Protein backbone atom coordinates (compact mmCIF):
# COMPACT_ATOMS: atom_id res chain seq x y z
CA UNK A 1 0.00 0.00 0.00
CA UNK A 2 1.16 3.54 -0.74
CA UNK A 3 1.41 5.92 2.22
CA UNK A 4 -1.81 7.58 3.38
CA UNK A 5 -3.21 9.49 6.35
CA UNK A 6 -6.14 8.42 8.49
CA UNK A 7 -8.59 11.25 9.00
CA UNK A 8 -11.09 11.07 11.82
CA UNK A 9 -13.79 13.73 11.83
CA UNK A 10 -16.72 13.65 14.23
CA UNK A 11 -19.55 15.10 12.13
CA UNK A 12 -21.13 14.09 8.83
CA UNK A 13 -20.82 17.67 7.53
CA UNK A 14 -17.06 17.65 8.05
CA UNK A 15 -16.68 14.21 6.45
CA UNK A 16 -18.86 15.20 3.52
CA UNK A 17 -17.02 18.49 2.94
CA UNK A 18 -13.66 16.73 3.10
CA UNK A 19 -14.72 14.10 0.56
CA UNK A 20 -16.29 16.63 -1.81
CA UNK A 21 -13.10 18.73 -1.82
CA UNK A 22 -10.68 16.30 -3.44
CA UNK A 23 -12.49 13.03 -4.12
CA UNK A 24 -9.73 11.67 -6.34
CA UNK A 25 -7.21 11.64 -3.49
CA UNK A 26 -9.54 10.53 -0.69
CA UNK A 27 -11.55 7.43 0.15
CA UNK A 28 -14.25 6.87 2.73
CA UNK A 29 -13.49 3.97 5.04
CA UNK A 30 -16.10 1.96 6.94
CA UNK A 31 -15.09 -1.65 7.65
CA UNK A 32 -12.38 -1.25 5.04
CA UNK A 33 -12.44 -4.80 3.72
CA UNK A 34 -12.85 -4.02 0.02
CA UNK A 35 -10.88 -0.77 0.35
CA UNK A 36 -7.79 -2.39 1.89
CA UNK A 37 -7.99 -5.08 -0.78
CA UNK A 38 -7.97 -2.47 -3.56
CA UNK A 39 -5.10 -0.58 -1.93
CA UNK A 40 -3.06 -3.78 -1.55
CA UNK A 41 -3.70 -4.69 -5.18
CA UNK A 42 -2.43 -1.25 -6.19
CA UNK A 43 -5.68 -0.35 -7.94
CA UNK A 44 -5.93 2.90 -6.02
CA UNK A 45 -3.50 5.07 -4.08
CA UNK A 46 -5.39 7.72 -2.10
CA UNK A 47 -3.64 10.23 0.16
CA UNK A 48 -6.28 10.04 2.85
CA UNK A 49 -8.73 7.53 4.28
CA UNK A 50 -11.61 9.37 5.94
CA UNK A 51 -13.03 7.14 8.65
CA UNK A 52 -16.80 6.89 8.96
CA UNK A 53 -16.40 5.16 12.32
CA UNK A 54 -15.29 8.48 13.79
CA UNK A 55 -18.68 10.14 13.27
CA UNK A 56 -20.09 10.71 16.76
CA UNK A 57 -23.30 11.99 18.31
CA UNK A 58 -26.75 11.29 16.89
CA UNK A 59 -25.44 10.69 13.37
CA UNK A 60 -22.91 8.19 14.68
CA UNK A 61 -25.70 6.45 16.58
CA UNK A 62 -27.90 6.27 13.47
CA UNK A 63 -25.04 4.83 11.43
CA UNK A 64 -24.33 2.08 13.96
CA UNK A 65 -27.94 1.47 15.08
CA UNK A 66 -30.50 -1.17 14.26
CA UNK A 67 -33.90 0.27 15.12
CA UNK A 68 -37.46 -0.86 14.53
CA UNK A 69 -39.51 1.77 12.75
CA UNK A 70 -43.29 1.33 12.38
CA UNK A 71 -42.98 -2.36 11.67
CA UNK A 72 -39.99 -1.87 9.37
CA UNK A 73 -36.32 -1.47 10.23
CA UNK A 74 -33.68 1.19 10.03
CA UNK A 75 -30.26 -0.40 9.56
CA UNK A 76 -27.24 1.84 10.13
CA UNK A 77 -24.78 1.84 7.24
CA UNK A 78 -22.01 0.82 9.68
CA UNK A 79 -23.88 -2.18 11.08
CA UNK A 80 -21.68 -5.20 10.45
CA UNK A 81 -22.74 -8.22 8.41
CA UNK A 82 -22.17 -10.33 11.55
CA UNK A 83 -24.67 -8.20 13.44
CA UNK A 84 -27.24 -8.52 10.65
CA UNK A 85 -26.64 -12.26 10.33
CA UNK A 86 -27.31 -12.87 14.02
CA UNK A 87 -30.07 -10.32 14.52
CA UNK A 88 -32.83 -12.37 16.07
CA UNK A 89 -35.49 -9.70 15.58
CA UNK A 90 -35.51 -10.10 11.82
CA UNK A 91 -38.38 -12.50 12.05
CA UNK A 92 -39.68 -14.60 9.17
CA UNK A 93 -40.96 -11.66 7.09
CA UNK A 94 -37.35 -10.43 6.79
CA UNK A 95 -35.49 -13.74 6.76
CA UNK A 96 -33.70 -12.98 3.47
CA UNK A 97 -31.80 -10.07 5.08
CA UNK A 98 -30.32 -12.31 7.75
CA UNK A 99 -29.65 -15.17 5.35
CA UNK A 100 -27.89 -12.96 2.81
CA UNK A 101 -25.69 -11.34 5.47
CA UNK A 102 -24.79 -14.76 6.88
CA UNK A 103 -23.89 -16.09 3.44
CA UNK A 104 -21.35 -13.39 2.56
CA UNK A 105 -17.60 -13.90 3.09
CA UNK A 106 -16.34 -15.47 6.34
CA UNK A 107 -16.96 -14.95 10.08
CA UNK A 108 -13.81 -12.82 10.44
CA UNK A 109 -14.75 -10.62 7.48
CA UNK A 110 -18.38 -10.33 8.59
CA UNK A 111 -17.16 -9.01 11.96
CA UNK A 112 -15.60 -6.07 10.12
CA UNK A 113 -17.54 -5.60 6.88
CA UNK A 114 -20.46 -3.18 7.01
CA UNK A 115 -23.88 -3.09 5.35
CA UNK A 116 -23.04 0.15 3.53
CA UNK A 117 -19.65 -1.12 2.43
CA UNK A 118 -21.18 -4.30 1.11
CA UNK A 119 -23.53 -2.28 -1.10
CA UNK A 120 -20.82 0.05 -2.40
CA UNK A 121 -17.91 -2.37 -2.91
CA UNK A 122 -16.22 -2.45 -6.29
CA UNK A 123 -16.53 -5.41 -8.69
CA UNK A 124 -14.68 -8.66 -8.06
CA UNK A 125 -14.03 -9.29 -11.76
CA UNK A 126 -10.54 -10.70 -12.15
CA UNK A 127 -9.76 -8.37 -15.02
CA UNK A 128 -10.84 -5.32 -13.02
CA UNK A 129 -8.82 -6.51 -9.99
CA UNK A 130 -5.66 -7.02 -12.04
CA UNK A 131 -3.42 -4.00 -11.65
CA UNK A 132 -1.85 -4.38 -15.09
CA UNK A 133 -5.10 -4.60 -17.03
CA UNK A 134 -6.69 -1.28 -17.91
CA UNK A 135 -10.19 -2.51 -18.55
CA UNK A 136 -13.26 -0.52 -19.51
CA UNK A 137 -14.06 0.16 -15.85
CA UNK A 138 -10.64 1.69 -15.35
CA UNK A 139 -10.83 3.94 -18.40
CA UNK A 140 -9.60 1.40 -20.94
CA UNK A 141 -11.12 0.61 -24.30
CA UNK A 142 -12.61 -2.82 -23.70
CA UNK A 143 -14.18 -5.22 -21.27
CA UNK A 144 -11.83 -8.20 -21.30
CA UNK A 145 -14.59 -10.50 -20.09
CA UNK A 146 -16.36 -10.30 -23.43
CA UNK A 147 -13.77 -12.48 -25.16
CA UNK A 148 -11.75 -13.72 -22.20
CA UNK A 149 -12.44 -16.16 -19.38
CA UNK A 150 -15.96 -15.10 -18.57
CA UNK A 151 -17.17 -18.03 -16.50
CA UNK A 152 -18.17 -15.73 -13.62
CA UNK A 153 -19.56 -12.86 -15.66
CA UNK A 154 -22.95 -11.44 -16.59
CA UNK A 155 -25.69 -13.21 -18.52
CA UNK A 156 -28.27 -10.44 -18.09
CA UNK A 157 -27.95 -6.68 -18.62
CA UNK A 158 -24.34 -6.94 -19.75
CA UNK A 159 -22.58 -4.46 -22.01
CA UNK A 160 -20.42 -2.61 -22.45
CA UNK A 161 -19.10 -4.04 -19.16
CA UNK A 162 -19.92 -7.61 -18.15
CA UNK A 163 -19.11 -7.56 -14.42
CA UNK A 164 -21.53 -9.11 -11.98
CA UNK A 165 -22.48 -6.93 -9.04
CA UNK A 166 -20.72 -8.28 -5.94
CA UNK A 167 -23.21 -7.28 -3.22
CA UNK A 168 -25.13 -10.14 -1.68
CA UNK A 169 -26.94 -7.91 0.79
CA UNK A 170 -28.19 -5.72 -2.09
CA UNK A 171 -30.16 -8.63 -3.44
CA UNK A 172 -32.10 -9.15 -0.21
CA UNK A 173 -32.67 -5.41 0.12
CA UNK A 174 -33.94 -5.25 -3.47
CA UNK A 175 -36.42 -8.03 -2.75
CA UNK A 176 -37.64 -6.02 0.26
CA UNK A 177 -38.07 -2.68 -1.56
CA UNK A 178 -35.51 -1.10 0.76
CA UNK A 179 -34.19 2.42 0.37
CA UNK A 180 -31.08 4.22 1.56
CA UNK A 181 -30.89 7.56 3.37
CA UNK A 182 -28.02 9.63 2.06
CA UNK A 183 -26.47 12.68 3.69
CA UNK A 184 -25.17 15.51 1.56
CA UNK A 185 -24.42 19.14 2.37
CA UNK A 186 -27.75 20.05 0.74
CA UNK A 187 -29.64 17.83 3.18
CA UNK A 188 -30.66 14.22 3.39
CA UNK A 189 -32.44 12.36 0.62
CA UNK A 190 -33.89 8.90 0.26
CA UNK A 191 -32.96 6.73 -2.72
CA UNK A 192 -34.80 3.53 -3.62
CA UNK A 193 -32.31 0.67 -3.54
CA UNK A 194 -32.97 -0.06 -7.23
CA UNK A 195 -31.90 3.50 -8.09
CA UNK A 196 -28.68 3.23 -6.10
CA UNK A 197 -27.07 1.04 -8.76
CA UNK A 198 -25.83 2.29 -12.13
CA UNK A 199 -25.85 -0.09 -15.11
CA UNK A 200 -22.75 -0.02 -17.33
CA UNK A 201 -24.87 1.15 -20.27
CA UNK A 202 -25.26 4.43 -18.35
CA UNK A 203 -21.69 4.67 -17.00
CA UNK A 204 -19.25 1.76 -17.01
CA UNK A 205 -16.83 3.52 -14.64
CA UNK A 206 -19.03 3.29 -11.53
CA UNK A 207 -21.54 0.94 -9.95
CA UNK A 208 -23.50 3.33 -7.73
CA UNK A 209 -25.15 6.70 -8.02
CA UNK A 210 -23.63 8.43 -4.98
CA UNK A 211 -21.59 11.56 -5.65
CA UNK A 212 -18.45 12.67 -3.78
CA UNK A 213 -19.66 14.08 -0.47
CA UNK A 214 -22.71 11.79 -0.36
CA UNK A 215 -22.68 9.52 2.68
CA UNK A 216 -25.02 6.60 3.25
CA UNK A 217 -26.46 6.95 6.76
CA UNK A 218 -29.10 4.23 7.03
CA UNK A 219 -30.85 1.54 5.04
CA UNK A 220 -34.63 1.53 5.51
CA UNK A 221 -36.71 -1.64 5.33
CA UNK A 222 -40.42 -0.94 4.87
CA UNK A 223 -42.92 -2.62 7.21
CA UNK A 224 -44.16 -6.09 6.41
CA UNK A 225 -47.35 -7.99 7.13
CA UNK A 226 -47.04 -11.07 9.28
CA UNK A 227 -47.86 -13.13 6.17
CA UNK A 228 -44.77 -11.92 4.30
CA UNK A 229 -42.01 -14.45 3.70
CA UNK A 230 -38.61 -14.02 2.17
CA UNK A 231 -35.53 -16.09 1.59
CA UNK A 232 -32.05 -15.88 0.07
CA UNK A 233 -30.24 -18.78 -1.63
CA UNK A 234 -26.84 -19.01 -3.30
CA UNK A 235 -24.71 -21.62 -5.04
CA UNK A 236 -20.95 -21.32 -4.68
CA UNK A 237 -18.05 -23.50 -5.73
CA UNK A 238 -17.02 -23.55 -2.07
CA UNK A 239 -19.56 -23.32 0.75
CA UNK A 240 -17.54 -20.68 2.58
CA UNK A 241 -15.43 -17.72 1.54
CA UNK A 242 -16.45 -17.80 -2.06
CA UNK A 243 -18.46 -15.57 -4.34
CA UNK A 244 -21.78 -16.95 -5.56
CA UNK A 245 -22.03 -18.44 -9.03
CA UNK A 246 -25.64 -17.40 -8.82
CA UNK A 247 -27.98 -16.26 -6.05
CA UNK A 248 -31.62 -15.33 -5.59
CA UNK A 249 -33.70 -13.42 -3.06
CA UNK A 250 -37.47 -13.68 -3.16
CA UNK A 251 -40.21 -12.09 -1.11
CA UNK A 252 -43.99 -12.62 -1.23
CA UNK A 253 -47.08 -12.99 0.88
CA UNK A 254 -49.58 -15.79 0.47
CA UNK A 255 -53.07 -14.67 1.46
CA UNK A 256 -56.27 -16.42 0.48
CA UNK A 257 -54.22 -18.94 -1.46
CA UNK A 258 -52.78 -16.26 -3.78
CA UNK A 259 -49.33 -14.72 -4.07
CA UNK A 260 -49.05 -10.98 -3.59
CA UNK A 261 -46.27 -8.41 -3.27
CA UNK A 262 -43.93 -10.71 -5.18
CA UNK A 263 -40.33 -9.59 -5.63
CA UNK A 264 -37.71 -11.66 -7.43
CA UNK A 265 -34.08 -10.56 -7.34
CA UNK A 266 -31.23 -12.40 -9.07
CA UNK A 267 -27.59 -11.94 -8.19
CA UNK A 268 -24.21 -12.59 -9.78
CA UNK A 269 -25.93 -12.67 -13.14
CA UNK A 270 -25.87 -8.96 -14.06
CA UNK A 271 -23.81 -5.79 -13.54
CA UNK A 272 -26.46 -4.59 -11.09
CA UNK A 273 -28.56 -6.53 -8.57
CA UNK A 274 -31.18 -7.76 -11.04
CA UNK A 275 -34.90 -7.54 -10.43
CA UNK A 276 -36.89 -9.87 -12.63
CA UNK A 277 -40.13 -8.21 -13.65
CA UNK A 278 -40.78 -11.18 -15.95
CA UNK A 279 -40.84 -13.67 -13.07
CA UNK A 280 -42.86 -11.34 -10.86
CA UNK A 281 -45.50 -10.93 -13.59
CA UNK A 282 -45.89 -14.71 -13.86
CA UNK A 283 -46.27 -15.11 -10.08
CA UNK A 284 -48.32 -12.13 -8.90
CA UNK A 285 -51.92 -12.98 -8.00
CA UNK A 286 -51.51 -16.68 -8.79
CA UNK A 287 -51.91 -19.73 -6.59
CA UNK A 288 -48.51 -21.19 -5.68
CA UNK A 289 -47.65 -24.46 -7.39
CA UNK A 290 -44.61 -26.31 -8.66
CA UNK A 291 -45.75 -25.72 -12.24
CA UNK A 292 -46.14 -21.96 -11.65
CA UNK A 293 -42.67 -21.73 -10.11
CA UNK A 294 -41.13 -23.56 -13.05
CA UNK A 295 -42.75 -21.10 -15.45
CA UNK A 296 -41.59 -18.14 -13.35
CA UNK A 297 -38.02 -19.48 -13.33
CA UNK A 298 -38.05 -19.85 -17.12
CA UNK A 299 -39.42 -16.32 -17.50
CA UNK A 300 -36.75 -14.93 -15.16
CA UNK A 301 -33.94 -16.17 -17.41
CA UNK A 302 -35.78 -15.82 -20.73
CA UNK A 303 -33.72 -12.79 -21.75
CA UNK A 304 -30.37 -14.21 -20.65
CA UNK A 305 -27.54 -13.92 -23.16
CA UNK A 306 -24.72 -16.09 -21.89
CA UNK A 307 -21.12 -15.49 -22.90
CA UNK A 308 -18.85 -18.31 -24.04
CA UNK A 309 -18.23 -19.86 -20.61
CA UNK A 310 -21.19 -18.97 -18.39
CA UNK A 311 -24.20 -20.69 -19.93
CA UNK A 312 -24.35 -22.91 -16.83
CA UNK A 313 -25.77 -19.97 -14.91
CA UNK A 314 -29.15 -20.27 -16.63
CA UNK A 315 -30.21 -23.69 -15.27
CA UNK A 316 -28.41 -22.93 -12.00
CA UNK A 317 -30.35 -19.74 -11.28
CA UNK A 318 -33.61 -21.24 -12.59
CA UNK A 319 -33.19 -24.05 -10.09
CA UNK A 320 -32.33 -21.68 -7.25
CA UNK A 321 -35.37 -19.54 -7.95
CA UNK A 322 -37.70 -22.55 -8.00
CA UNK A 323 -36.20 -23.80 -4.74
CA UNK A 324 -36.61 -20.38 -3.09
CA UNK A 325 -40.24 -20.10 -4.18
CA UNK A 326 -41.02 -23.60 -2.95
CA UNK A 327 -39.40 -22.67 0.34
CA UNK A 328 -41.28 -19.42 1.08
CA UNK A 329 -44.64 -20.82 -0.13
CA UNK A 330 -44.10 -24.10 1.70
CA UNK A 331 -44.91 -26.11 -1.42
CA UNK A 332 -43.08 -29.45 -1.30
CA UNK A 333 -40.37 -29.83 -3.92
CA UNK A 334 -41.27 -32.30 -6.68
CA UNK A 335 -39.53 -35.67 -6.50
Amino acid at each position, binding site marked *: *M*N*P*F*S*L*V*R*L*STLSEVSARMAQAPETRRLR*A*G*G*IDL*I*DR*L*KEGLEAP*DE*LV*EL*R*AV*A*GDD*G*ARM*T*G*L*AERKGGWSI*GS*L*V*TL*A*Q*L*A*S*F*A*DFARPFAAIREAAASA*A*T*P*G*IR*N*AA*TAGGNLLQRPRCWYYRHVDLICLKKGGAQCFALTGDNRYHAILGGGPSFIVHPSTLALALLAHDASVVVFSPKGERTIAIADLFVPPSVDPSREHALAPGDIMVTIELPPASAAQRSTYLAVKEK*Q*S*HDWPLGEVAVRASVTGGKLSGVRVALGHVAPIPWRSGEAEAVLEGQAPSAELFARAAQAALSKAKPLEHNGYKIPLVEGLLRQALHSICEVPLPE
Partner: protein
Amino acid sequence: MASSTLTRRGLLRGVGTATVVTSCVRKPNDGKSDHPPITNVHTPAEIGPEPTSVSFTLDGKPAIVQVEPRVTLLEALRLDLDVTGPKLVCDRGACGACTVMVDGVPRNACMMLAHDVAGANVTTVAALGTPEALSELQAAFVRHDALQCGFCTSGMLVSCAALLQRRGPTRNKLTAEEVEDAIAGNLCRCGTYPHVVAAVLETAGAPPPTSRRGEA
Protein backbone atom coordinates in the same frame (compact mmCIF):
# COMPACT_ATOMS: atom_id res chain seq x y z
CA MET B 1 -23.76 -8.59 26.77
CA ALA B 2 -23.38 -5.99 24.07
CA SER B 3 -23.58 -3.15 26.58
CA SER B 4 -20.93 -4.59 28.89
CA THR B 5 -18.60 -5.12 25.92
CA LEU B 6 -19.11 -1.53 24.91
CA THR B 7 -18.38 -0.20 28.36
CA ARG B 8 -15.20 -2.23 28.55
CA ARG B 9 -14.20 -0.97 25.16
CA GLY B 10 -14.85 2.61 26.12
CA LEU B 11 -12.67 2.20 29.19
CA LEU B 12 -9.90 0.48 27.26
CA ARG B 13 -9.90 3.23 24.69
CA GLY B 14 -9.26 5.66 27.53
CA VAL B 15 -6.02 3.86 28.29
CA GLY B 16 -4.64 4.35 24.82
CA THR B 17 -5.80 7.82 23.90
CA ALA B 18 -5.29 11.19 25.48
CA THR B 19 -8.86 12.34 25.17
CA VAL B 20 -11.83 10.10 24.87
CA VAL B 21 -15.51 10.79 25.02
CA THR B 22 -16.93 7.61 26.45
CA SER B 23 -20.37 9.15 26.67
CA CYS B 24 -20.48 9.06 22.87
CA VAL B 25 -20.34 5.28 22.91
CA ARG B 26 -23.96 4.43 22.30
CA LYS B 27 -25.83 1.26 22.74
CA PRO B 28 -26.28 0.22 19.13
CA ASN B 29 -29.29 -2.03 19.55
CA ASP B 30 -31.16 -3.94 22.16
CA GLY B 31 -28.46 -6.56 22.37
CA LYS B 32 -30.53 -8.99 20.32
CA SER B 33 -27.65 -9.55 17.97
CA ASP B 34 -24.97 -11.59 19.68
CA HIS B 35 -22.26 -9.82 17.69
CA PRO B 36 -20.86 -6.51 18.88
CA PRO B 37 -21.07 -3.46 16.66
CA ILE B 38 -18.24 -1.98 14.67
CA THR B 39 -15.54 -0.43 16.87
CA ASN B 40 -16.02 3.30 16.95
CA VAL B 41 -13.14 5.71 17.01
CA HIS B 42 -14.09 8.80 18.93
CA THR B 43 -10.93 10.83 18.89
CA PRO B 44 -10.91 13.36 16.06
CA ALA B 45 -7.45 13.22 14.57
CA GLU B 46 -5.32 13.17 11.50
CA ILE B 47 -2.79 10.39 11.71
CA GLY B 48 0.16 10.01 9.37
CA PRO B 49 1.30 9.46 6.73
CA GLU B 50 4.48 9.42 8.84
CA PRO B 51 4.78 6.87 11.66
CA THR B 52 2.96 7.66 14.88
CA SER B 53 2.63 5.58 17.99
CA VAL B 54 -0.31 3.34 18.71
CA SER B 55 -0.77 1.58 22.02
CA PHE B 56 -2.99 -1.35 22.84
CA THR B 57 -3.14 -4.40 25.05
CA LEU B 58 -1.47 -7.42 23.45
CA ASP B 59 -2.00 -10.81 25.06
CA GLY B 60 -2.63 -9.14 28.40
CA LYS B 61 0.38 -6.83 28.34
CA PRO B 62 0.70 -3.21 27.21
CA ALA B 63 2.18 -2.85 23.72
CA ILE B 64 3.22 0.19 21.73
CA VAL B 65 4.38 0.47 18.13
CA GLN B 66 5.47 3.37 15.98
CA VAL B 67 3.91 2.75 12.56
CA GLU B 68 2.55 4.47 9.48
CA PRO B 69 -1.24 4.27 8.99
CA ARG B 70 -0.70 1.92 6.03
CA VAL B 71 0.84 -0.78 8.24
CA THR B 72 -1.57 -3.63 8.86
CA LEU B 73 -2.14 -5.04 12.32
CA LEU B 74 -0.57 -8.28 11.11
CA GLU B 75 2.59 -6.50 9.92
CA ALA B 76 2.88 -4.60 13.20
CA LEU B 77 2.47 -7.80 15.21
CA ARG B 78 4.91 -9.91 13.21
CA LEU B 79 7.53 -7.38 12.12
CA ASP B 80 7.50 -4.72 14.84
CA LEU B 81 6.51 -6.74 17.89
CA ASP B 82 7.93 -10.13 16.85
CA VAL B 83 4.63 -11.83 17.67
CA THR B 84 4.61 -14.51 15.00
CA GLY B 85 1.66 -16.64 16.12
CA PRO B 86 -0.66 -14.99 13.56
CA LYS B 87 0.54 -16.20 10.14
CA LEU B 88 0.84 -14.26 6.90
CA VAL B 89 -0.62 -16.42 4.13
CA CYS B 90 -3.10 -14.87 1.70
CA ASP B 91 -2.88 -11.29 3.03
CA ARG B 92 -6.43 -10.68 1.72
CA GLY B 93 -8.71 -11.98 4.47
CA ALA B 94 -9.42 -15.17 2.56
CA CYS B 95 -7.60 -17.81 4.62
CA GLY B 96 -7.86 -16.90 8.31
CA ALA B 97 -4.27 -17.84 9.21
CA CYS B 98 -3.81 -14.36 10.74
CA THR B 99 -6.95 -14.52 12.90
CA VAL B 100 -6.65 -12.66 16.21
CA MET B 101 -9.28 -11.54 18.69
CA VAL B 102 -9.86 -7.81 18.95
CA ASP B 103 -11.91 -7.16 22.08
CA GLY B 104 -12.96 -10.81 21.98
CA VAL B 105 -14.07 -10.75 18.32
CA PRO B 106 -12.20 -12.85 15.70
CA ARG B 107 -10.74 -10.60 13.02
CA ASN B 108 -8.40 -10.97 10.07
CA ALA B 109 -5.31 -9.05 11.20
CA CYS B 110 -4.17 -8.69 7.59
CA MET B 111 -7.25 -6.63 6.70
CA MET B 112 -7.01 -4.25 9.69
CA LEU B 113 -4.64 -1.37 10.16
CA ALA B 114 -2.45 -1.30 13.26
CA HIS B 115 -3.99 2.07 14.13
CA ASP B 116 -7.43 0.43 14.27
CA VAL B 117 -6.59 -1.27 17.56
CA ALA B 118 -5.58 1.82 19.55
CA GLY B 119 -6.72 1.11 23.10
CA ALA B 120 -8.17 -2.27 22.19
CA ASN B 121 -7.47 -5.69 23.60
CA VAL B 122 -5.69 -7.89 21.03
CA THR B 123 -5.40 -11.61 21.73
CA THR B 124 -3.22 -13.94 19.65
CA VAL B 125 -2.75 -17.68 19.90
CA ALA B 126 0.19 -17.02 22.26
CA ALA B 127 -2.21 -15.99 25.03
CA LEU B 128 -4.21 -19.22 24.90
CA GLY B 129 -1.53 -21.40 26.48
CA THR B 130 2.17 -22.24 26.51
CA PRO B 131 3.99 -25.36 25.28
CA GLU B 132 4.37 -26.38 28.94
CA ALA B 133 0.80 -25.56 29.90
CA LEU B 134 -1.50 -26.02 26.93
CA SER B 135 -5.03 -24.68 27.21
CA GLU B 136 -7.85 -27.19 27.36
CA LEU B 137 -8.63 -26.44 23.71
CA GLN B 138 -5.01 -26.82 22.58
CA ALA B 139 -4.69 -30.12 24.43
CA ALA B 140 -7.86 -31.33 22.70
CA PHE B 141 -6.39 -30.35 19.33
CA VAL B 142 -3.38 -32.55 20.09
CA ARG B 143 -5.51 -35.46 21.30
CA HIS B 144 -7.75 -35.31 18.24
CA ASP B 145 -4.91 -34.86 15.77
CA ALA B 146 -6.59 -31.62 14.68
CA LEU B 147 -3.58 -30.35 12.77
CA GLN B 148 -1.23 -31.64 10.14
CA CYS B 149 1.14 -29.05 8.68
CA GLY B 150 0.01 -26.60 11.37
CA PHE B 151 0.02 -23.43 9.33
CA CYS B 152 -3.69 -22.74 9.83
CA THR B 153 -3.63 -23.88 13.45
CA SER B 154 -2.96 -20.61 15.25
CA GLY B 155 -5.83 -18.91 13.43
CA MET B 156 -8.04 -21.97 13.82
CA LEU B 157 -7.40 -22.03 17.60
CA VAL B 158 -8.22 -18.33 17.96
CA SER B 159 -11.52 -18.71 16.06
CA CYS B 160 -12.45 -21.72 18.20
CA ALA B 161 -11.40 -20.03 21.46
CA ALA B 162 -13.53 -17.01 20.53
CA LEU B 163 -16.50 -19.29 19.88
CA LEU B 164 -16.13 -21.00 23.25
CA GLN B 165 -15.75 -17.62 24.95
CA ARG B 166 -18.81 -16.23 23.19
CA ARG B 167 -20.95 -19.21 24.13
CA GLY B 168 -19.85 -19.01 27.79
CA PRO B 169 -22.02 -21.16 30.05
CA THR B 170 -24.06 -22.54 27.11
CA ARG B 171 -20.99 -24.00 25.41
CA ASN B 172 -22.06 -27.52 26.31
CA LYS B 173 -24.96 -27.02 23.88
CA LEU B 174 -22.62 -26.36 20.95
CA THR B 175 -23.32 -28.33 17.77
CA ALA B 176 -20.93 -29.49 15.07
CA GLU B 177 -22.68 -27.13 12.68
CA GLU B 178 -21.95 -24.11 14.88
CA VAL B 179 -18.29 -25.06 15.11
CA GLU B 180 -18.15 -25.49 11.34
CA ASP B 181 -19.67 -22.03 10.92
CA ALA B 182 -17.14 -20.52 13.34
CA ILE B 183 -14.18 -21.94 11.40
CA ALA B 184 -15.68 -21.24 7.97
CA GLY B 185 -13.07 -18.52 7.48
CA ASN B 186 -10.08 -20.68 8.43
CA LEU B 187 -8.75 -22.50 5.42
CA CYS B 188 -7.03 -25.83 6.19
CA ARG B 189 -5.48 -27.38 3.14
CA CYS B 190 -4.66 -30.57 5.05
CA GLY B 191 -8.38 -31.09 5.62
CA THR B 192 -8.36 -31.40 9.41
CA TYR B 193 -11.84 -29.92 9.85
CA PRO B 194 -13.60 -33.02 11.28
CA HIS B 195 -10.88 -33.35 13.91
CA VAL B 196 -11.06 -29.66 14.79
CA VAL B 197 -14.83 -29.96 15.24
CA ALA B 198 -14.41 -33.00 17.48
CA ALA B 199 -11.74 -31.22 19.57
CA VAL B 200 -13.90 -28.13 20.08
CA LEU B 201 -17.01 -30.13 21.01
CA GLU B 202 -15.02 -32.15 23.52
CA THR B 203 -13.55 -29.01 25.08
CA ALA B 204 -17.03 -27.51 25.28
CA GLY B 205 -18.41 -30.59 27.01
CA ALA B 206 -20.90 -30.95 24.13
CA PRO B 207 -21.98 -34.23 22.56
CA PRO B 208 -19.49 -35.48 19.92
CA PRO B 209 -20.33 -35.01 16.24
CA THR B 210 -22.59 -37.71 14.82
CA SER B 211 -22.58 -37.05 11.11
CA ARG B 212 -20.96 -34.42 8.96
CA ARG B 213 -23.05 -31.72 7.36
CA GLY B 214 -24.40 -32.80 4.02
CA GLU B 215 -24.43 -36.46 5.02
CA ALA B 216 -27.72 -37.98 6.03
